[in-house]
């Protein structure tokens, strides 16, 4: 944490960070209804037993490869391609870890700050593990609390892309996710997901409606907007395949590797290429969009 001291330190009021603050995390209070991030086991469990279970088993019939690439303990940053209006991929990845991993763990999902300010989303997303994509949040989760965090480096560019551009990865942000993992000395686990693009394809964007509602985007999908709000969740039954790739370690790169922007970009680019290659490979083996 020495580096944080220099970049974020307050010149007038020097912060002493020579003790490991991880020892001072709050203790567990079993009677609590949500955890300190606002995550609610009750609501999550309720969703998990109903909608998620149905989608995972019978609708998307998710198949998982190499789940043991997700470490059984300690922080890890999961990085995946991202697609679809109201993307179902995050939920399916979380469910896959829950169902298939020998040591199931909760997964935190980074979401845009936008959702914190939008009524409804602001209340619901944290309850099911959504955390605003702030570097400090990711660092606390990865380093201090040793949790699994899922990021979509493509961000909105991934979910906004139209059906004709499916499975073509967008730019991977500015490599911020690599920096976050380096600071926390946590491994990066790339993930390739096939199916989400067909489950919720976007044919066009309705800009007028977007301006009216103030949402990030309003897509034209097979069921939205003519199907009403529920139409947003009207997924087509595409076959899902999730492949967890070999983790990339970040703890052997020397001192403060994130200061080397070239290295950060190189690793980000490598991860993007590996996900893209695996997507192509999985698509080549796929015989049918619906039956896999």
């Amino acid at each position: 944490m020495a580096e944080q001291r220099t970049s974020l330190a307050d010149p007038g009021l020097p912060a002493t960070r020579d003790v490991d603050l991880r020892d001072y995390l709050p203790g567990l209070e079993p009677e609590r209804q949500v955890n300190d991030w606002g995550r609610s086991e009750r609501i999550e469990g309720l969703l998990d037993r109903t909608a998620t279970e149905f989608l995972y088993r019978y609708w998307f019939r998710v198949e998982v490869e190499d789940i043991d690439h997700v470490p059984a303990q300690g922080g890890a940053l999961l990085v995946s391609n991202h697609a679809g209006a109201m993307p179902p991929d995050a939920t399916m990845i979380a469910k896959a870890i829950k169902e298939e991993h020998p040591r199931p763990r909760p997964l935190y999902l980074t979401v845009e700050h936008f959702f914190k300010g939008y009524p409804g989303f602001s209340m619901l997303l944290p309850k099911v593990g959504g955390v605003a994509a702030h570097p400090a949040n990711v660092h606390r989760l990865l380093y201090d609390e040793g949790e699994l965090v899922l990021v979509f480096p493509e961000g909105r560019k991934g979910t906004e892309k139209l059906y004709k551009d499916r499975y073509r990865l967008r730019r991977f942000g500015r490599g911020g996710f690599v920096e976050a993992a380096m600071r926390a000395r946590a491994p990066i686990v790339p993930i390739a997901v096939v199916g989400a693009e067909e489950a919720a394809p976007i044919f066009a964007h309705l800009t007028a409606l977007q301006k009216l509602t103030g949402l990030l985007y309003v897509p034209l999908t097979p069921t939205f907007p003519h199907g009403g709000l529920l139409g947003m969740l009207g997924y087509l039954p595409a076959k899902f395949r999730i492949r967890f790739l070999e983790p990339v370690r970040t703890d052997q790169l020397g001192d403060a590797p994130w200061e080397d922007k070239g290295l950060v970009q190189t690793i980000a680019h490598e991860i993007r290429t590996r996900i893209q290659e695996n997507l192509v490979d999985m698509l080549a083996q796929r015989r049918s969009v619906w039956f896999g």
Partner: protein
Amino acid sequence: MAAGDASSHSKRILVTGLSTHWGGRLAQALEQDPSVEAIIGIDRTPPKVELVRTEFVQVSDAHSLIRRIVDAAEIDTIVDTRLVVDSIVTTPRRAHENNVIGTMNILAACSGRDSPVRKVVVKSSAHYYGIEQDDPAFFTEDFRRKRPARTPIERDVVEAEELVRDFALHHPDRTVTVLRFCNGIGRALRTSHSRLLALPVVLGILGFDPRYQFIHEDDIVGVLEHATRHDLPGAYNAAGDGVLVLSEVASLLGKPFAPVLPPWGTGVALTALRRAGLRVGPEVARQLRFGRAVDNRRLKAAGYRYRYTSRETILKLREHQRVDPLLRGTGSAYRYEREVEEFLRRSPNVRRPAPAAGAITAPPEGFDSLDARDLIKLIPSLEPAALEALREHEETHRARRTVLAAIDANLVRHQTA
């Protein structure tokens, strides 16, 4: 660990804002410590709690006057508890006068190389961080806000802290502590949030369930005292462990959660409520929308142990809310009368239990760590005055019968001798 050693220990303490809830309670707590030689409290209005040895000086915040008091009494530590962090306490104009101009004056009174002051402790607020949509989930002390303050109170807190930071920069030899408290909860506290939570339903904004942290009033006093006793240079967040969400607060209080405020035009709705008699400050609106939590670990690493978590604080509040309607009007009837206080402190006719304010005869530190058998062995060697003090201490603390009997026996021996 920033534990104060004997040489830097605060002995002569000036408490500003003695008549605020915090000033009064802090002075009461410091009075218990026999190693503190002098406690002097200043404020514009007389104190509201009974104080035994604290000296009250009624003074405005003119810095020349405060400076004279500081120099004359050789104050080594100033604890500034004056900051107004809730806009329902007073008008924005007076709050600004108190928060910014007042802080400037207090700092002016202890600046300069020849000042005896070695330590300044300032009670601030998490309002320093503001509340924005793209904030981190936990503010750490080194967070620098990117946007200007949105409400008058927030602006005051930021300006006051800037003054304190400047002071710290120019006086590297002084220990300057800034304590940023989250929402305080306590029996006697009247804040925007205590009013909101006292309603029959817990109001919220439709579609939002903000994260909330609370700190119990005993912990606020405890933290102030901890910072006075130990050297904690820099800024520290103070908040109970655990972050609740508003709906959880409602269920802990046993009240329905009513997210009925509109998500758009919340400010207008709150203004209407204010017209209708509910006194809540404008700084509450954003907290009801986005919530706020701070990282309290730095203070824990500096040795402070919180007595209550956020959840326990709310459970305490629930107890108060149940009992208070029954106890109405039975609160402390203390009224400050200058002549009476002077008489009690100065008159030679007053019989004081421990001469010289107990500085010599109070049980020395370390007695508490002795077990009963060792203590009884020591008792015959003590003077009668010390025995009296020890007896009082034992009675109010552990009240071991064997120890009390041994003291009594020795007291009788001294009387007969």
